[in-house]
């Protein structure tokens, strides 16, 4: 789960990472109240999970209440790359001496944690990584050892941060590492991390991605869950416990297993079509799950045909076939369905379906045949 900036900052604050004094506002009046509380001048920042909000007019400096009123009014409701601003973060504006970059994430190749620290923050760090890779000091951290203050100090020296920033930055990095590990982040990133003219180091932005697998030990994450911006189709699917991702095509996809579902998308594409979604129904392809999956796909107006691709391992294909028929009894489906059922007990499964096949319910022997048929039925090339 990606957090909004304000959530990320509040999460940082729990771990003692210094942030600017500020708070959230959903209305112009709240923004003014928050600005009065934080102390002028303030920065009014649009809360959207998309980059480039500054260029889009979503970040403004305000010297007084009147300016806050104007900017908050303009930014609330602003459409930034398809994301409508519903919430603001208003904080005391900091004087900036220097801008740095700091982050922790997992280095999958090394199977250890990876810290990145740069004295050249504030700009696109990807660009720095390409044009001047030496400007980013990498630090591999073995999870068994963790990050000691001593190691953090050496790292800060190596990154060549300005002298007055070093001691505070080292302490902050240890806190950021704790936030990343104990806070179960996939990514904890500060860009920019700033040094103020009066010699203080703190986080001016926050990019945090939480590991959904760790939600069971973080009841405090519940407050973040409600604010996730989702595709309507995805909300419906989540309510039914389905692993669904909305896409732009016209062939609805139901498959068991993430790999097979991904592969089904590819094969539909190779046959000249485009998938309307990714949907992995996992191991339990029973009637309830199948009905829920068909309902979710049927509610997507872009869908013209539905491809059900099941490979029975533990899941027996005869049970899947019964599940499909039972689901069709319960749900009225507006698009034709193409079935490819293979694996354990496939013959028995096909027998069960034999009497029910029609131009609305078609069976194909292989994944490729089924994809071709579904694409043709969706009006793509055959």
């Amino acid at each position, binding site marked *: 789960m990606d957090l909004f900036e304000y959530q990320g900052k509040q999460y940082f604050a729990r771990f003692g990472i210094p942030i600017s004094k500020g708070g959230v506002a959903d209305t112009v009046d709240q923004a003014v109240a928050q600005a009065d509380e934080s102390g002028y001048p303030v920065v009014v920042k649009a809360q959207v999970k998309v980059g480039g909000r500054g260029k889009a007019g979503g970040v403004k400096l305000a010297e007084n209440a009147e300016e806050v009123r104007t900017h908050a009014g303009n930014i609330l409701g602003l459409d930034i790359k398809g994301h409508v601003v519903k919430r603001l973060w208003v904080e005391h504006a900091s004087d900036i001496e220097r801008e740095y970059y700091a982050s922790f994430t997992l280095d999958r190749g090394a199977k250890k944690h990876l810290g990145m620290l740069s004295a050249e923050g504030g700009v696109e760090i990807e660009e720095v990584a390409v044009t001047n890779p030496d400007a980013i000091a990498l630090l591999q951290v073995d999870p068994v050892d963790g990050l000691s203050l001593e190691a953090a100090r050496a790292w800060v020296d190596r990154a060549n941060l300005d002298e007055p920033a070093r001691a505070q930055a080292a302490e902050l990095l240890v806190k950021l590492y704790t936030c990343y590990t104990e806070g179960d982040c996939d990514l904890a990133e500060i860009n920019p991390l700033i040094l103020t003219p009066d010699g203080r180091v703190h986080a001016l932005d926050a990019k945090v991605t939480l590991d959904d697998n760790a939600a069971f030990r973080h009841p405090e994450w519940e407050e973040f869950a409600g604010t996730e911006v989702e595709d309507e189709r995805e909300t419906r699917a989540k309510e039914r416990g389905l692993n669904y991702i909305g896409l732009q095509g016209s062939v609805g996809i139901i498959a068991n297993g993430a790999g097979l579902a*991904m592969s089904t998308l590819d094969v539909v594409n190779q046959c000249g079509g485009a998938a309307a979604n990714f949907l992995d129904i996992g191991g339990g392809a029973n009637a309830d799950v199948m009905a829920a999956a068909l309902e979710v796909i049927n509610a997507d107006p872009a869908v013209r045909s539905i491809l059900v691709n099941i490979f029975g391992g533990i899941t027996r294909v005869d049970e899947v076939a019964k599940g499909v028929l039972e689901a069709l009894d319960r749900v009225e489906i507006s698009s034709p369905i193409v079935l490819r059922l293979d694996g354990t007990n496939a013959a028995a499964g096909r027998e069960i379906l034999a009497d029910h096949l029609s131009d609305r319910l078609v069976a194909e022997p292989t994944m490729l045949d089924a994809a071709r048929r579904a694409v043709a039925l969706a009006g793509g090339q055959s």
Partner: protein
Amino acid sequence: MSIFVDENTKVVIQGISPTSQGLYHGLRNRAYGTHVVAGTNPRRGGEEIEGIPVFATVADAVEATGANASFISVPPKFAADAIIEAAAAGVPFVVCITEGIPAQDEALAYNRLVREFPGTRLLGPNCPGIISPGKCNIGITSGDIAMPGGPVGIVSRSGTLTYQALHELSQQGVGQTTCVGIGGDPVPGTSFIDCLRAFEADPDTRAIMMIGEIGGSAEEEAAEFIGSSVTKPVVSYVAGVTAPAGRKMGHAGAIISGSKGTAQAKMDALAGAGVTVAHNPTAAGEAMVDVVRNLG
């Protein structure tokens, strides 16, 4: 021959109870012919479930039965501890199929194994397990779709695509030495390279099928290893050509971030290492059938 498990493998099921996933899959594995010699449950030591003796700890089970492999399908919050318990008891091969383990737990457990228990190989987590057809099956793979006798070794990051690959080959009369599902998580205990190295050393494995997916750089690293150290023919398929960037496709590891981890980059790297790259699972099966026929 086979890799990692064979007819002498003796399995202990960690976290066994009459209603546990471990028992359900363990009984299926036993029905396939796998030696399931013990189960563990701290509250049920001394009991017997479906003829499987239950011990309080893995160490007790190993001492009493000589178990040399363990099978873990406990819930995510207990999985990392279960892995370490097995390693501390000296179990050399641990299969963990649990899905949804926090990445921090996974990274910590992996690095503890490397440092404290180098004699233990972990397969998984979040994987379908391993099958050496006709000899041993640990995990959730259906034994019916596998065919004994080789000559193909299979290694895969995805569960259902592994079944698909087994099925395609078995239907064409091409058997398998061992089929390893390494799983789709960010920190897999056993990598493509571990399996490629083992298949290269296994005289009965004469060709290798490798099934990858988007995310990370494991396929690119495998390609480099194949180029330098694998002499046997390799056929590969990578899922997720059409996956959008920035979205997790079911597996925690299956995510494209930035320009890294795309299927195309992986396929290019593999093709560059001399691997036959197929564009869908069926084509991969057909390509492998051709390879096997040409082995003579």
